[in-house]
């Protein structure tokens, strides 16, 4: 009897979890789930893997505007534009930072694939931008020389 109850409880828990997961899926697409594995990755390639990037195509249709030389790595302004049609998301990575993934932006309902933000750079490094279009990933890089460490 108690075994039956336990089975029933387990079953209900499984159903509840499945429902929760089912409900989570649409939220996952837009919001609420922070990609912990990608943001905590210590190497650029590992971060890319956690973003499910398999093949990257280098594209000059991604514009990265950042200074060639940054006096202070604590604040480096970066402007990123994707001119690739149907851009869904853009990730900004700094190869030589302790955790390379800086930010991941997803655009919907008429938002332009365009971002200006300010990032920290620990040392001289490439800034890499990864753009997702359907199942494909495009990338471009821009090197920034950093005079003063910005990660503290």
């Amino acid at each position, binding site marked *: 009897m108690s075994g039956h109850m336990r089975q029933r409880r387990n079953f209900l828990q499984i159903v509840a979890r499945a429902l929760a997961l089912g409900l989570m899926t649409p939220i996952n697409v*837009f*919001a*609420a789930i*922070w*990609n912990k594995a990608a*943001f905590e990755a210590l190497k650029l390639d590992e971060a890319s893997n956690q973003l499910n990037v398999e093949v990257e195509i280098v594209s000059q249709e991604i514009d990265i505007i950042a200074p060639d030389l940054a006096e202070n790595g*604590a*604040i*480096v*302004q970066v*402007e990123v534009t994707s001119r690739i049609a149907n851009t869904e998301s853009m990730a900004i990575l*700094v190869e030589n*930072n*302790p*955790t390379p*993934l*800086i*930010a*991941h*932006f*997803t*655009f*919907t*309902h*008429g*938002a*332009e694939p*365009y*971002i*200006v*933000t*300010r*990032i*920290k750079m620990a040392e001289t490094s490439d800034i890499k931008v990864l753009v997702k279009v359907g199942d494909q990933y495009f990338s471009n890089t821009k090197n920034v020389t950093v005079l003063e460490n*910005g*990660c*503290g």
Partner: protein
Amino acid sequence: MVVANMTDFNVDNMKMRAQLKADGITEVKVLISHPMETGRKKDDFYQLIPAHFVQLLTATLNGQLVLEAQWGTGISKNPYLTFRLNGAAVGDIVSVTWHDNLGKTATQNIAVTPA
């Protein structure tokens, strides 16, 4: 009356502007007061300062999601963000909400104005 400081996020936490430009694109600028601590920095007593950073920022236009940003610790202190929207009209409402890793959150709404 509560005085705003680094740990007390109130309505003054965000400065926002949304301007409809001549080309039909609305440019939204957001400035947030936030320490964005990486968790790797030490204080004057050589103690690690715990990580404290904005993890998620979402923007809506008239209630519809337009931008989702996931951030790590590499966004600079007092985060700055510009993004651009198509199809917004003067008077439309842009809303920005952020959540940090310590469960703090803030939201601000602003109407689109002509440039």
